[in-house]
């Protein structure tokens, strides 16, 4: 390869992808922030070189499998991102509640703005605002308590994403089984046809005849 990026065109040269299947391989993925095209095509290449599809149906199944895997990775990243976002929101809420001026009337908007700023800074830099962190711990909000609060906040979206995730995993299992069954079917079919061509009897039957 001339450069480091692996593309669908490289893949076309490396594997004998049937022309009819090519539009599905060449369709560029819509990437999200943090994803790269190279990453996607390297995963696709790994799938192709491991499964070694040889019929059009197997090619289709392999592409589907690769996409399911890509989506599973996406859901996992999304789950982490949701927990992290809610962690910031949980810190913000706790900071609001434990603020010295929380009882003062009219101070809430300022406290909220300050808490939001501190929470955001603390999420970017874990070492920021050590005093604020110490204050939170003195009120009983240690890392575990904040993580638990973040998890509770994320529960509904996490449950939905988990549903998508388990559906994708189920599809992967089904597809893998299909690939396996088809390969096995093909192998047996080839063997049977070879035997018919050479007029051989299966080994078990041959033993019985000899006996």
């Amino acid at each position, binding site marked *: 390869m001339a450069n480091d990026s692996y593309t669908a065109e490289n893949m076309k040269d490396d594997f004998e992808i049937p022309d009819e299947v090519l539009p599905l391989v060449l369709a560029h993925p*819509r*990437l999200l922030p943090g994803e790269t095209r190279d990453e996607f095509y390297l995963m696709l290449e790994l799938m192709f070189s491991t499964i070694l599809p040889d019929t059009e149906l197997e090619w289709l199944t392999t592409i589907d499998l690769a996409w399911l895997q890509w989506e599973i990775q996406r859901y996992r990243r999304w789950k982490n991102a*949701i927990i992290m976002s809610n962690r910031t929101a949980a810190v913000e809420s706790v900071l609001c509640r434990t603020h010295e001026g929380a009882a003062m009337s009219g101070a809430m908007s300022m406290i909220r703005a300050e808490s939001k700023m501190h929470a955001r800074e603390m999420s970017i830099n874990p070492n920021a605002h050590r005093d604020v962190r110490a204050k939170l711990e003195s009120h009983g909000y240690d890392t575990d308590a904040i993580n638990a609060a973040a998890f509770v906040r994320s529960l509904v979206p996490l449950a*939905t994403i988990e549903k998508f995730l388990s559906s994708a995993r189920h599809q992967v299992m089904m597809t893998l089984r299909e690939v396996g069954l088809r390969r096995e079917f093909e192998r047996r079919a080839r063997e049977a046809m070879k035997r018919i061509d050479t007029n051989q009897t299966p080994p078990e039957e041959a033993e019985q005849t000899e006996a």
Partner: protein
Amino acid sequence: MTSTRKAAANKRNASLSTGPRTLGGKQRSSLNSYRHGLATPIAKHTSAAVNIDRLATVLAAYSNDYWRIEKARVVAESHFDLARIRVARAEVLWRVGGFENCVGDELDQALSALEKIARYEQRTRSKLRGSLEAMLDP
């Protein structure tokens, strides 16, 4: 009862608002209820239809058997449909800002849109499975 004068005025006013008249306006308003386009059969997309035909012919192993061709067509359609579903799903995730903006109403809307898309995927996959089983049956 409505007077004749009032009825005539209503008729006159109604004729002023009968929707877009220019070609551009008609094209724009034709997309008013467009959400993700997954309800339209994939074979109706000209570009996809050509690819589906080619793939179905190969999957049917150039057979003349009507049922085999039909099943192969469903398999080919399902695979192109799945590709379209993946694009729609990525579009939703992209609109919500990837994984940057993961709280609030935007997240709820994205999850609800993804659930709707998942229903289309389930339907397509069950169609695909049925046809695959029928094709693999000796």
